[in-house]
């Protein structure tokens, strides 16, 4: 059961923000980080953590085969002594949510709500694999996660199908890694690694903002020119923040942003297959045999050009 029932969700700031809100996490917002530099980060502060989303590639596999060694930094096997929360990723489709939890459950200044607080105390002392399994088996987290997924027309009819080894855009596997400031260091929390990975020392928000760009750039440099990635930051609820300081312009901008998120989430959750098939049926019913034939022949020629 643990391996099924998790749908893929889009990795989007709006989706993640609404997802953690639904899990009752208070005052948290996700933002795209378009440029990895301290100024861009400072503009979004406070930064609770950074999510690095990238296409899992040959070099990652190479390190994974080499004792699952970190690409940079070093394992901290004693992380539990320092109250660091770390769960392994046990289901590909749940990887985004697992990465988000790895960051949020290490925040002392974030109210994660009763459900996640209970969850955290329940898994305290579990090894990373057990903690990951517990996330996978959580009905609450799974149902919230799935409420943001794009419907898949055939999931129910064909439950025996093996889980996809690529994402729904067929772009290969994407992987999420979280970076947080905890225990006086920058830690990388990668659900596919054995332990949290310790990078440079870091004891304040300012220091995190100053240092995290070079940690990320070091990682990116390992991939030479092949890497496709994006970066999200977890920050506070900006709508709340601008309301408190009475910045009406920014309040409106944040409200518009949320409208757009919600609109996109709704569009994302809808299945358009019926609509498409209906229109195609209508085209067919109003086409002569000749028209229909020409349409399909054009398609064959286009498909043929694809093969060249």
């Amino acid at each position, binding site marked *: 059961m643990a391996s099924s029932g998790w749908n893929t969700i889009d990795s989007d700031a709006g989706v993640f923000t609404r997802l953690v809100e639904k899990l009752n996490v208070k005052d948290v917002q996700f933002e795209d980080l378009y440029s990895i530099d301290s100024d861009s980060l400072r503009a979004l502060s406070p930064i609770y953590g950074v999510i690095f989303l990238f296409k899992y590639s040959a070099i990652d596999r190479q390190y994974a085969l080499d004792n699952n060694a970190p690409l940079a930094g070093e394992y901290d096997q004693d992380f539990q002594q320092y109250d660091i929360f770390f769960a392994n990723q046990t289901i590909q489709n749940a990887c985004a949510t697992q990465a988000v939890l790895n960051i949020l459950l290490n925040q002392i200044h974030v109210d994660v709500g009763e459900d996640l607080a209970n969850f955290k105390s329940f898994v305290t002392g579990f090894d990373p694999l057990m903690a990951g399994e517990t996330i996978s088996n959580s009905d609450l987290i799974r149902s919230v996660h799935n409420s943001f997924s794009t419907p898949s027309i055939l999931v129910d009819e064909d439950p025996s199908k093996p889980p996809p080894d690529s994402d729904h855009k067929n772009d290969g596997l994407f992987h999420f890694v979280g970076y947080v400031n905890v225990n006086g260091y920058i830690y990388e929390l990668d659900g596919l690694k054995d332990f949290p990975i310790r990078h440079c020392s870091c004891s304040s928000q300012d220091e995190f903002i100053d240092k995290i760009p070079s940690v990320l750039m070091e990682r990116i440099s390992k991939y030479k020119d092949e890497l496709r990635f994006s970066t999200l930051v977890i920050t506070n609820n900006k709508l709340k923040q601008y309301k408190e300081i009475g910045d009406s312009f920014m309040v409106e901008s944040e409200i518009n942003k949320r409208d757009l998120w919600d609109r996109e989430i709704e569009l994302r959750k809808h299945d*358009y297959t019926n*609509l498409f098939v209906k*229109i195609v049926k209508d085209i067919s019913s109003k086409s002569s045999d*000749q028209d229909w034939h020409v349409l399909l022949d054009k*398609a*064959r020629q286009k498909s043929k050009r694809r093969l060249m």
Partner: protein
Amino acid sequence: MSTIKFNAGKVEYDEDTHECVPFPQKGVVTITPRSEEGSFYNFNWTQKSSEDGYFEIQEYLIIPGDVSFKQVSSCKTGRVLALTFLSSGAKHLFWLQDVGDDEELDKLTDKDVDLVKRINELFTPMDDEDEDEDEKPQKEEPPQPATTTNEPSTSTSAINLPILDLEDAFPFEVLETHLNRLSDKQLLELVKDDLPPTIGQNPTRANIYDLIRSGFFQQSKANLTQHLRNANGAGYLLAQSFGLEYQGEGISNFLEGIRKSSKKPHEESPSDDTTES
């Protein structure tokens, strides 16, 4: 058309490390025309030697146009040929086991080059690009005449080219052209039950077009393409769920199911094969 045979062993290819792992067993590839299906071919690999008495056999059905067959240039330690199915992306590799070049291990011999050329000729679909292709060209008839029993009445040309993507048949422009011909009332009637809630509350022509142009709609189309191309029984389930007559797996058959179903209720005629709207 004669059978093509050559000695080759199996290779497993790791897409991530880009490494070919050849298996030492001797084998032979046989390519034969499929008698019952006109221009299709059987591509069989059979193991020639075995230590445990177990002889592995692999069989593939080749639809010309759906495969590529060429050398894997990145493999330098031997002559490896890749049979790639374009519709599914499945890739099968074979290493040539006849004597090759001593110095350049990956260099194809003249015989190999000729072999690859002959196979590619076989696997290239008959070229009928001319606009009026209702008449099948007689000059390059496949070895066996195409059977007509399963042929849809609406299409007189044999299925010698697959439709690989619904996008090829129904890109936004085609849908738009059609919707432009509908009155606002007809448009609404057609789409109203299948819109997401917010747009459903205010379904303007512009809103509907925006939706159909959106990435979300494209994604549904791509998913449907993917399901149909997997050809693992999904076509049957999909035809059923959309109330279509099941015509077989794959995109072309799915569209044929749509064609048949869309023609039926309008004509109310026992035979749905001749009337045009």
